[in-house]
């Protein structure tokens, strides 16, 4: 078991004929992901190393039966690509594109939530997600990861997602699903969404959550963990040393006045019973203790 994607998930790639789109489509397929098609209005009818290219998402869905998409198009075209995917009925829209204007994100998030409630957006500006040994959509370097659980991973940052996978792999700990929700201000999928899915997944016995400064998603997650979660959670929050008012790489990673600090997030998580580490390596060590005690 796993969350969101598995060995049967059929995936299309919007933007498959771009340099990045082609690279990651082929890389994901090489991992074993069922990449069944791509979309590029100008190159419909061709193929990318055997992956058929369609004129529209609707065509691709009709011909392949895909239920998930990776949106890897330039930022200016991302909003219409996401809406097109929702209109075609896709259940999971993984938007890896970075640099999307925040008003575009706010509009497509709300439009999809209201008009296409069966579609879920992951991202934008996220590294994607990986169910180890079954399906990889996006950028996560999956080779090191050990399959089968018992740990689920959810993270706002890309490289810290990889770091978490690596820390667990070095300790011989397996992972069910690893989700990068992205660091933008309007993430389509939240920590809480992932925590709820992991709580319901029988093969996930514990969860690593890597957060960062900015917003209040970690505090909201702490509230959820305290009231709704039975499985142990280990966390690390990046940005203890971040000065107020500066965007730390991610558009969403900013301390505004006294709000969004790492300290406040760590305190909220500790109060909810989460084991909070001060660095990613220490989080891996804490998780090894948790797994040893399962």
């Amino acid at each position, binding site marked *: 078991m796993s969350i969101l994607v598995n060995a049967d998930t059929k995936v299309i790639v919007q933007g498959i004929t771009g340099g990045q789109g082609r690279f990651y489509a082929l890389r994901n397929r090489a991992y074993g992901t069922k990449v069944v098609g791509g979309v590029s209005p100008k190159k419909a009818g061709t193929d990318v190393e055997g992956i058929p290219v369609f004129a529209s998402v609707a065509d691709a869905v009709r011909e392949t039966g895909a239920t998930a998409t990776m949106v890897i198009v330039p930022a200016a075209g991302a909003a219409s690509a996401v809406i097109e995917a929702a209109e075609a009925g896709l259940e999971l829209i993984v938007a890896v594109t970075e640099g999307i204007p925040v008003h575009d994100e706010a509009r497509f998030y709300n439009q999809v939530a209201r008009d296409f409630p069966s579609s879920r957006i992951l991202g934008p500006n996220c590294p994607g997600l990986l169910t180890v040994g079954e399906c990889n959509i996006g950028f996560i370097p999956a080779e090191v990861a050990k399959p089968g659980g018992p740990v689920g991973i959810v*993270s706002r940052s890309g490289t810290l997602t990889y770091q978490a996978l690596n820390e667990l792999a070095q300790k011989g700990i397996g992972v069910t699903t690893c989700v990068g929700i992205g660091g933008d201000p309007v993430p389509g999928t939240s920590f809480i969404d992932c925590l709820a899915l992991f709580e319901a997944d029988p093969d996930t016995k514990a969860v690593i959550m890597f957060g960062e400064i900015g917003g209040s998603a970690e505090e909201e997650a702490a509230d959820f963990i305290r009231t709704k979660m039975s499985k142990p959670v280990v966390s690390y929050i990046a940005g203890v040393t971040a000065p107020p008012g500066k965007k730390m790489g991610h558009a969403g990673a900013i301390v505004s006045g006294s709000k969004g600090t790492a300290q406040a997030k760590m305190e909220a998580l500790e109060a909810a019973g989460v084991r909070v580490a001060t660095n990613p390596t220490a989080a891996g060590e804490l998780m090894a203790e948790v797994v040893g005690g399962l």
Partner: protein
Amino acid sequence: MDLFEYQGKQLFARYGIPVSKGDVAETVDEAVRAAEAAGYPVVVKAQVQVGGRGKAGGIKLAENADEVRLHAGNILGMDIKGHVVKRVWIEHASDIAEEYYASFTLDRSAKKYLGMLSAQGGVEIETVADENPDAIARLSIDPVDGLTESACRTWVEQAKLNPAATDGAVDILMKLYNAYVDGDADLVEINPLILTPEGKVHALDAKVSLDENARFRHPEWDELVGLEKTDAREFEAAEKGLQYVGLDGTVGVIANGAGLAMATCDIVHEVGGRPANFLDIGGGASAQVMANALEVINNDPSVRSIFINIFGGITKGEEVANGIVQALDQVAIASPIVIRLDGTNADEGRAILSGYESDRLVSKPTMVEAARTAVEMAEARS
């Protein structure tokens, strides 16, 4: 990107929001000319991106040209909380009957827009929120539906402004919303929004932050480039396309990915050191990008050691190592370097680096060990 008040007012004016007649000045003579054009009395306002200008003496009323010369002369070059005043805004002084507050921003929890309106303006809105939260009328706006005039009118009534201000406030708020969405701003704020004794509603200040991600559809923003950077290091890094934030420590930090770069700063702090900067070179780590990053760090005189923290993901360890070695050939580095390389093919990468190791270039297998070594090196050279 935060705008100065005068830039914010120029933006407001383009959206039809009433602002006082005025102009920006960089010299005393320009200030006098601007004052003559605006008509006395005028207000001379320091243009800095920091609160508390008034208390610091950066806002003065002038009745005539001599007073403009006096105040502009004092304010230009003044240091307000580390921000040196390079420009003043001169505008015709307004008579004020009442002061309000208005803003639009994103409510990240609700994933909707949030409008805030208060009859208690002219003070920091955080203070009002702490001391008298009921004095702020909040309006949640669905980004798909937008703000309708009837919703706006109800909102204004809830804020209990003077009834004489209702029509003017509704008009300004509709235009301000347009400036927020159409103008691709992260924040638009008017504090104070004033009611004059004649019953006119008017923006006396302007705080605007623009969304850098929307630059591709705003060619007019090009003229704003470079004005907002106060840190010379940040300016240089921005020119090289690097994600850089200057900090006040001695350990220069280079990492790939925003989260890992923050974590690297944190771990330096955790083992007793202080990071000199946050620097994210992005997912890959090509020789050229690494050379650019090293150059920026090398130009910072407070740096005593450098901590390069790379997680090889898609980019394999040996490519990262080769990139670092080539970059070191391109830039003569003053400080010793500690490298922690992990991830895909990390062993191959470390093998390459081992051929170049010395007391100036050290490789460590974990973040914690690398951070300790970098901090020790920085202390030894301080």
